[in-house]
């Protein structure tokens, strides 16, 4: 009943519907379908040449590998940071909390040159790593560092609300039943945080796959060695190989859509199965 009445009473349905759909089509849908048509519309041989030649394969391996390592590092430390921020009070907690958002707000090119300055051999960290035989900048390790930097907020900001929502009764029950604090953390709390942790991990991973600005300065961009997939698109465009760029771009687009679909499906599933009766 109320729904029916809304249609009649509040004005602007036609106007906002028309405007929203036109603007959405113009800015998002038509450009994305141009990529889909251009990428998928080429002969298979040409597509597979662009996507599976040795240089591109090396870039895929590097991109997925570094993204996986960086998201794993973030899952571990991000969980600790989220837990610490919610559960403990200590001087500087608010500042630590605010710092987590820096990678969201700092332009990626700025992060890129700053990280490069720190980890190149004369830099504050590079100087210290050099004697240990560790080359951070201009190596895959540098890419991992950049991807860890940009991925951290995704994990922390996904896990933080889950820590806040933990049911105190469950923790109390564990302790009353004689579980040590460590056992409670491992057997009760960690499983409860798992859905959020996985969602944060996949989001950070998806973001890392497509990252460009913070990576290209620190990576050194050597073909076959430190060249990421995004950079390959730029290289192909500079050579006016639009079809090749579209092929790689389409594959990247599809992988991030699949990943984010997984996150949404997972969240839908876990809210249905674990919804707390508040």
């Amino acid at each position, binding site marked *: 009943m109320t729904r029916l009445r809304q249609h009649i009473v509040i004005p602007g349905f036609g106007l*906002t519907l028309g405007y929203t759909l036109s603007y959405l089509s113009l800015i998002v849908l*038509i450009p994305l379908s*141009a*990529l889909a048509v251009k990428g998928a519309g080429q002969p298979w041989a040409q597509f597979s040449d662009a996507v599976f030649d040795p240089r591109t394969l090396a870039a895929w391996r590097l991109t997925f590998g570094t993204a996986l390592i960086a998201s794993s590092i973030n899952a571990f430390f991000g969980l600790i940071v989220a837990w610490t*921020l919610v559960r403990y009070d200590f001087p500087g907690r608010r500042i630590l909390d605010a710092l987590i958002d820096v990678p969201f707000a700092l332009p990626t090119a700025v992060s890129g040159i*700053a990280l490069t300055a720190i980890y190149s051999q004369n830099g504050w960290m590079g100087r210290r790593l050099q004697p240990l035989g560790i080359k951070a900048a201009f190596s895959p390790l540098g890419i991992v560092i950049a991807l860890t930097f940009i991925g951290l907020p995704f994990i922390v900001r996904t896990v933080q609300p889950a820590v806040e929502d933990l049911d105190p009764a469950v*923790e109390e029950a564990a302790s009353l039943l004689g579980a040590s604090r460590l056992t409670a953390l491992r057997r009760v709390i960690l499983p409860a945080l798992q859905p959020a942790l996985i969602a944060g991990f996949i989001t950070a991973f998806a973001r890392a796959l497509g990252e460009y600005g913070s990576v290209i300065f620190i990576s050194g961009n050597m073909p076959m060695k430190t060249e990421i997939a995004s950079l390959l698109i730029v290289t192909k465009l500079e050579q006016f190989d639009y079809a090749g760029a579209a092929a790689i*771009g389409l594959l990247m687009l599809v992988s991030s859509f699949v990943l984010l679909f997984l996150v949404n499906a997972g969240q839908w599933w876990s809210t249905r199965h674990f919804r707390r009766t508040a």
Partner: protein
Amino acid sequence: MTSSGRPTEPRQTEPAWMRNLFIGASVAFVGLLILLPVISVFTEAFRKGFSFYLASISDPLAMSALRLTLITAAVTLAANLVFGLAASWLIAKFSFPGRNVLLSLIDLPFAVSPVVSGLVFVLLFGAQGWFGQGRIGDFLSRHGIQIIFSTPGVILATIFVTFPFIARELIPLMQEQGADEEEAAVLLGASGWQTFRRVTLPNIRWALVYGVVLANARAMGEFGAVSVVSGHIRGRTNTLPLHVEILYNEYNFSAAFAVASLLALLALVTLVAKAALEWRIRAEERPAGMEDIA
């Protein structure tokens, strides 16, 4: 993305050694990974002294980059603000088939990586693209309008990457607020525009500002998408982040960091504004929670 005001009561807590270990690990990790780069932007920027810094940021090419960045952000925010208001009005006040699909479509640009966001416009307006040839292409070239490797391309790519920001803040809030107040206003004889301006807008103003602040940070700082469509024409299609890249690749490090420090400053201002707005929004939400008790 909300940060908690105060730690939850420690109901069951870890032994002190463990607590200190967690705090120490968190501080060390975030300090090394995030704080250090922020500090280094400013130390590198002032490495050659204050006068070099001033010269770098007042250089004519830096100024033209700043101008393009400001123009791009202004157009982008205006366009996405109008869209955000229209889309949230549509989704929050009306019920219609396909509403959830529409919601997902609005979020789509978040899933597209920066370089691909630029790529789609190069493919669309490039020499062999749908709008690069044919009737639209002819029209554009007849009127001397260049999209790619020109300012319109930079603006389009920026609109694309910031597309969901404002709509995303407004939609859940307006859904929560429902349509009762607007219905009352309309029944009392207010016009649609009056209802929007006098009833809806005051209810959503802080979320609106919040969305604009976040979108602005991304619009001014976007690199990958803009880099692909701009063509890197100095003094014409360079935004501040692209100018940083050019200076850096010319080994003009101190100047690159000087310009970068402006962007870092923008990021810090954004974070402070974001925290202040979150505090503000929480303060306004509190009285609304009273209804639950009644």
